[in-house]
């Protein structure tokens, strides 16, 4: 099973090499691709000198554009399973096999690594959990499917899902939107329990002020997307 791990990277000079090395040590069976989203720090130099495989975007496209580049790469190179993993060290490669398994077995098209099944490890702040629960409820209301960790960026996708995301992927804060796209297009989405860690260094791209924009934008996108498409249940 040919597997590619996409690691989006924006100003992650403190973490990126550790993340890549840890992935190589833990999962030598998986290929990886770091997508440098036009970082303004030394991320690119670090990737180059470390002999890493990376895409170097000529302009900052945001997390959605960066991840989509990885999906395009995976589709062009015939990967069977594509996994997204954050470049800040929050996602433990030890769980990669567990996240990939339901997709590799053909049970799911998208397996999301969820913090909120066993409630172990880093659980994020109370306010973020509140937002995540709201979006989770909204997705359940719109699609009837329950996904707990809607903002988790640790997810594995099948070949068909990869091909879909290579063409359609939200620009910024894409995780919840990707779930509703997958569900309305008839793909099978499920969760796998994982333990996440706090980011190992640097600062998060989501700040207090942008959280308001995040909630409004994502909620609006979810509702518009759902209203504009009828559900293709059971087609896949």
């Amino acid at each position, binding site marked *: 099973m040919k597997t590619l791990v996409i690691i989006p990277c924006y100003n992650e000079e403190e973490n990126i090499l550790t993340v890549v090395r840890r992935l190589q040590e833990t999962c030598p069976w998986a290929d990886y691709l770091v*997508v440098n989203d036009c970082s303004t720090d030394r991320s690119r130099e670090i990737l180059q000198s470390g002999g890493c*495989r*990376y*895409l*170097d*975007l*000529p*302009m900052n*496209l945001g997390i959605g*554009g960066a991840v*989509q*580049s990885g999906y*395009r*790469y995976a589709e*062009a190179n015939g990967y069977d399973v594509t996994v997204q993993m954050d470049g800040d060290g929050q996602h433990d490669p030890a769980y990669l096999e567990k996240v990939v398994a339901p997709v590799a077995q053909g049970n799911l098209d998208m397996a999301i690594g969820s913090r909120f099944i066993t409630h172990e490890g880093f659980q994020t702040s109370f306010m973020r959990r509140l937002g995540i629960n709201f979006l989770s409820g909204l997705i359940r209301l719109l699609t009837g499917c329950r996904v707990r960790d809607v903002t988790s960026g640790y997810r594995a996708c099948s070949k068909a899902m990869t091909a879909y995301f290579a063409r359609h992927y939200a*620009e910024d804060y894409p995780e919840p939107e990707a779930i509703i796209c997958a569900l309305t297009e008839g793909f099978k989405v499920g969760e796998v329990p994982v333990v996440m860690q706090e980011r190992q260094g640097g600062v998060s791209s989501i700040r207090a002020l942008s959280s308001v924009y995040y909630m409004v934008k994502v909620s609006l996108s979810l509702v518009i997307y759902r209203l504009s498409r009828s559900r293709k249940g059971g087609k896949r």
Partner: protein
Amino acid sequence: MSLILQIVFLLGDLVFLGLIFLLIKRDRLSVRFGMLWLIFGGVWLVFGAVPWLLKVLRGVLRFQVVSNMVFTMLLAFVLLVLLTLSVAASLAARRMRQLAQANALLEERVRRLEQQRGPDAQNEDA
């Protein structure tokens, strides 16, 4: 509308249309976006030449005075232009994203091929 005001209005409109033509001719404005402004100028040229039409339209649309109708029409046109520009900006952003991704994929492929060929082959090419 007085004759002098009508002449000034018509001349102003002709200058506006001339400017749009000039911008299109010099490739500063695409025909696609210039079309909207040309239609706008054309409509006001007709209204300027035959102001009586405005009075008829005011009667049909039940406006109290012609000036209210003119301002409403201008506002509607400006909103239409803004919407068109928002659509164009969204489309351009999407195309730019696709182009940047294609560029990055191609650059990675070239880099990989160059690494496979080794530094000696690259020196021979140079």
